[in-house]
């Protein structure tokens, strides 16, 4: 039982990091129907910005998060402007391919010696690690920070989406681009903002990932990116609570598989669950079915 609780906590830690990435996928998909394959690489950029902020500039932790947030938002907004906006009226597959191109570009450009470099880097711990024991289960301060920061981000996101003018505009654009535009919403700006907001969350996720699993490299975004996107689909893409729920399921299935079955099957089980869920609920757990017009 202690063993299970311990693994459950570890799964929660993984799930929360996935949730931060999944939110970006779900918001961007909700608003422009694009699988932004480069989002996982924005997460990687966040981790590297965190590394630089701590090691090179010696910034305190809140400033580290701020740097990652603004750096990632800038990257994502630039990406949207260059590669996605010109293709908004083109067939959807064209922007999917530019997203794949952007993903490859970010991975290989940052692994150049002149940029971040191709090696594995150890992420410096900005504070000493302590852990608390209770009934055979140990909780580290890293886990506490991950839980607290993620919940904070969720609260801020909830506030932005449901309590601000920008959030209202986002919801309007996601419902209907054209009509929202006619009602005076600046659609391009709203879409840029959504990309930036998603990327900011991924940046926070990148720093947290670096603190929790202190080995980073420029290709680290691929697998978490795929899993976070899958989590967003699992929960019902376009839905914010869905993305969090899906991410928690992905995190648990991965950790529990590694703990009870074998770590070599870790990446497989989550996708078995995904396919099973999609067969029962084709639009994800909390997804809404859109009726198709004839």
């Amino acid at each position: 039982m202690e063993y299970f609780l311990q693994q459950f906590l570890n799964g929660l830690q993984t799930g929360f990091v996935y949730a931060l990435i999944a939110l970006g996928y779900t918001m961007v998909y909700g608003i422009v129907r694009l699988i932004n394959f480069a989002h996982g690489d924005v997460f990687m950029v966040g981790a590297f910005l965190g590394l630089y902020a701590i090691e090179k500039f010696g910034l305190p932790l809140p400033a580290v998060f701020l740097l990652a947030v603004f750096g990632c938002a800038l990257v994502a907004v630039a990406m949207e402007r260059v590669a996605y906006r010109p293709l908004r009226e083109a067939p959807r597959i064209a922007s999917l391919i530019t997203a794949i191109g952007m993903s490859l570009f970010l991975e290989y450009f940052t692994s150049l010696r002149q940029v971040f470099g191709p090696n594995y880097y150890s992420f410096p711990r900005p504070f000493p690690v302590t852990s608390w024991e209770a009934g055979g289960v140990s909780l580290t301060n890293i886990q506490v920070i991950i839980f607290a920061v993620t919940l904070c981000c969720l609260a801020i996101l909830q506030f932005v989406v449901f309590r601000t003018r920008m959030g209202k505009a986002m919801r309007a654009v996601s419902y209907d681009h054209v009509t929202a535009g006619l009602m005076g919403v600046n659609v391009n700006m709203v879409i840029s903002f959504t990309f930036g907001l998603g990327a900011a969350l991924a940046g926070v996720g990148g720093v947290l990932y670096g603190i929790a699993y202190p080995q980073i490299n420029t290709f680290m975004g691929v697998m978490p990116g795929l899993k976070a996107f899958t989590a967003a689909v699992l929960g019902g893409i376009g839905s914010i609570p869905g993305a969090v729920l899906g991410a928690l399921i992905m995190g648990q299935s991965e950790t529990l598989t590694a703990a009870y079955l074998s770590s070599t099957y870790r990446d497989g089980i989550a996708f078995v669950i995904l396919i099973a869920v999609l067969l029962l609920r084709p639009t994800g757990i909390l997804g809404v079915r859109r009726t198709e017009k004839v």
Partner: protein
Amino acid sequence: MTGAGRIASFARNAAAFAAAAAAGYLLEATGIVNPYWIQIFQLACIMSISALGLNLIYGFTGLFSLGHAAFYGIGAYTAACVMKSAGGESQAVFLVSLAAGTAGAAAVALLVGLPVLRLTSDYLGIATLGFGIIMKVLFDNADSFLPMAGGARGMTGIAKMTNAAWCVASLWIVAVAVRNLVRSGFGRALVSIREDEIAAESVGIDTFLYKLAGFVAGCGLAGMAGGLYAHLYTFLHPGNFDFFKSVDVLVIVVLGGLGNISGTLVASFGWIFLLEVLRVVLPSEFIEFRWVLIPVLLIVTMLLRPQGLFGFREFRFFRDGTEG
């Protein structure tokens, strides 16, 4: 077409097929061309076959599949295991192993397609992506249920059977078969599903059955390509059949133009040769810029030609006479 016309057309195709295979044989036997580039050429033929399969699935039927490499891998492992179990290294056994690879991939596609093809658009893409990752995990662990397959260390000791003649001949057969298929009533049904599934349903097309058939056929081609691949490089590694390989094929199909046979062929050869030419052309201190240039080229191409390089234009050979 009249009966005599059909026979003449078949004879022309057979003659061209024989000529192409002979050209492939000469290419390799005479040794005029550097063997390295012949190998790249063979890889491009194999890629074309796999990409034609995905074009059938995505380009003609409109089924978004992100797991094509899984079927490529199933074909490769099946063919390699059949060849290895048979022991001998005869051309006949190779043909059987290729057929087994094709059939194996098609059979799995049927099993997967039955439940999964009820999903639509991006959800289908994600389910097939998930299937691809599950298959990669199975390849990684294959040694625990099939020692021959080697698991994460890779499968070695596969006979080298694929040569230029086999590649050229297979590609020729597949290209003609796909052309004839999409021109047939069956192909028209597939295209109608791509254009509007509800409308297709309402004119009496059993859309699920056709989607399943298109998917199985396309995955079978991936399996055939996999069989050729296994016997070209004589070594299989699970990493060769991961998500990136699926993306590779998808990029080729979209670059060439969805539902465009000529485009797929040109894009396959262009993509494979571009990767190698950049390796040769770039000065050694800039070699790591190869994968920076390629995505930039990819993005620029998409921005300039979102409909693919060829759009709707086909080479005369692949045209069906009804379009201008």
